[in-house]
């Protein structure tokens, strides 16, 4: 399996996540190398979103370790006691990964360019002109050069999601997490967003995405990860996962997705 690569950018070891009594992740192991495009598939409730949110430290987790470029994320051991890092460190670590949400989550009071500039200015500490130039470059790359000064309220769903993608990528993250980013879109707007992701993948960005678009996943991914009940049940290259699934639940899931 491709999981044992020595140049792993992201390493997830024995990740356990509980919401109260409900164990949602039950020991997830997963490595992601630089330049990989990983699609996470699996039925609703299997823990895909929670996994991405743990990686971006939007959720706390109770056991296991996540390392990004070898640095432990979110926690450190002090005298054998596991401690959540202070807000400042969490912020720095979060800025190393980008996240694109199903519901866009653009800042409504800021224009498209300002949405992108905020992180560049306050986190990356760029000057105003430099941040603006970078925002414009990225909006151009996602095909929105004409929408630089529009507020989110003046954009279509597909355009909003492309701004959100540009906002995440302009920060030069090591890794970008995308959670069902086309699920809230009207069908006719899905393709423009998927196309944008394809272009990023082709340019070598490291992506970890949760998707229900099987044809897209097959097309864009270097590896497919199938999650089932809080565990990675099977993973492998797209041809193998879609062509010769081994896990009975995966075969069943793919059968259902095809309809």
């Amino acid at each position, binding site marked *: 399996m491709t999981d044992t690569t020595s140049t792993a950018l992201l390493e997830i070891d024995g990740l356990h996540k509980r919401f109260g009594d409900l164990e949602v992740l039950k020991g997830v192991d997963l490595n992601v190398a630089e330049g990989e495009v990983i699609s996470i598939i699996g039925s609703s409730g299997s823990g895909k979103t929670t996994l991405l949110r743990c990686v*971006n*430290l*939007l959720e706390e987790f109770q056991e296991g370790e996540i390392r990004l470029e070898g640095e432990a994320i979110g926690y450190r051991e002090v005298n054998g006691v596991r401690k959540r890092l202070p*807000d*400042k460190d969490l*912020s*720095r670590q*979060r*800025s*190393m*990964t*980008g*996240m694109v*949400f199903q*519901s*866009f*989550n*653009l*800042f*409504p*009071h800021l224009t498209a360019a300002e949405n992108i500039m*905020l*992180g560049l200015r*306050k*986190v990356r500490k760029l000057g105003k002109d430099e941040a603006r130039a970078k925002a414009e470059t990225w909006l151009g790359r996602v095909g929105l050069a004409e929408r630089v000064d*529009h*507020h989110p*309220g*003046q954009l279509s769903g597909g355009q909003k999601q492309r701004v*959100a993608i540009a*906002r*995440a990528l302009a*920060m030069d993250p090591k890794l970008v997490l995308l959670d069902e980013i086309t699920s809230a879109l009207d069908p006719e707007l899905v393709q423009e967003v998927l196309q944008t992701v394809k272009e990023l993948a082709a340019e070598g960005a490291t992506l970890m995405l949760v998707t229900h678009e099987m044809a897209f996943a097959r097309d864009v991914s270097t590896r497919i990860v199938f999650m089932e009940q809080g565990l990675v049940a099977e993973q492998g290259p797209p041809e193998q996962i879609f062509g010769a699934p081994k896990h009975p639940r995966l075969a069943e899931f793919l059968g259902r997705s095809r309809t």
Partner: protein
Amino acid sequence: MSEFLHQLTLSQGALLSGVQVTIYISFLSIIIGTAIGLVIGLVLTYAPFLARLPFRIYVDAIRGTPVLVLILAAYYVPAVLGVSLDALSSGILALTGFCAAHMGEIFRGAFQSVEKGQTEAARAIGLTFPQTVRYVLLPQVIRSVLPTWVNTGAELVKGSTLLSAIGVGELVLRTQEIIGRNFMTMEFYLVAGLIFLLINLAIESFGKYLERRLTYA
């Protein structure tokens, strides 16, 4: 009529100083009260339960108490405790506390009504919590709070009239003193009413102005 105009001229100094005191008290209370209210709103929304508790009790206690009682308490209680506060300071203390409690509850509602995704997107970018408040939450919260804030301002101006009860020389007390001299009860209460109307109209149009400036598409 000419007698009324004559009396008006005689009392314009007193009226003016009453207006000044009313505006001074209201202004100070709403500025300080809003700043404290913002902190209370943040604590009520984002702090853990135990840290929230004393603020919750404060807000509910103050909001359940008539303003006049707050004023009397701010005037008499410090004296009992051996702290001497003049009537003006007591009045500002009471109205500031009143404003802080109301604004705290208003800010809490506004922070809670901002979609959770906003905070998450801000954190995902790497903004710290204070940066998230400053650049993402506050700009949205201010817009939704504005109409209620203007209302609270008007409430404070009305509330400030109760300070006449502890001898603060605001507009109502001055008006009563003037009437005590010339016995033109109707006329001078009308004058005072008119002035209050003007003050509240000014507050209202200031709010409208801010609202216009702060709208986005």
